[in-house]
């Protein structure tokens, strides 16, 4: 029962992050929201592992945390080397 409740809580929190992704307003807000969404995905996968009673899922959660980090570093490099940041200066 508690696992289901926790799952719903994560989904609600993910919804909040998703809303922030859509609302923006700057590109950095969106990246931050995506990163936070990723962290919650890690928690959700770990929860599914407990749900299924299998520790295997935790490898996937670890992998997801890893990919989340790499994606952030890659996005930073991209936004540094591109014109991505120009929109923000107009908005901030």
């Amino acid at each position: 029962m508690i696992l289901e409740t926790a799952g719903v809580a994560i989904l609600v929190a993910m919804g909040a992050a998703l809303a922030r992704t859509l609302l923006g307003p700057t590109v950095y807000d969106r990246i931050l929201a995506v990163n936070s969404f990723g962290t919650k995905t890690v928690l959700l996968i770990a929860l599914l592992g407990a749900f299924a009673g299998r520790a295997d899922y935790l490898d996937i959660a670890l992998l997801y945390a890893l990919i989340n980090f790499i994606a952030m570093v890659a996005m930073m490099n991209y936004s540094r080397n591109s014109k991505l940041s120009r929109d923000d200066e107009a908005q901030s």
Partner: protein
Amino acid sequence: MSISHALAVLLLSLGSGLLIVAGIGLLRFPHFYTRLHAAGVIDTLAAGLFLAGLAWWFGPTLGSVKLLLIFVFLLFTSPTACHALAATAWASGLREPAQNKE
């Protein structure tokens, strides 16, 4: 319901509550730099409580050690990612529209 089960329930509900509050913060705070702090709550205390609750659920197996590993991994990567994001935003000229700058 055993005591350890009750502890798992307590940790999980605390973690879930924090997740939702942090989600509210992510929506409610006014500017990018303030939202960073709300995301920080998710990365540290909320994730920690949540994973600790799950570890109790798994019991003393390899699974709970792996959960600890995930948490340590998050503790190393999330501030780094957060800092990289803030540094990039700062370097691109994003400033807080607010008043009191030092």
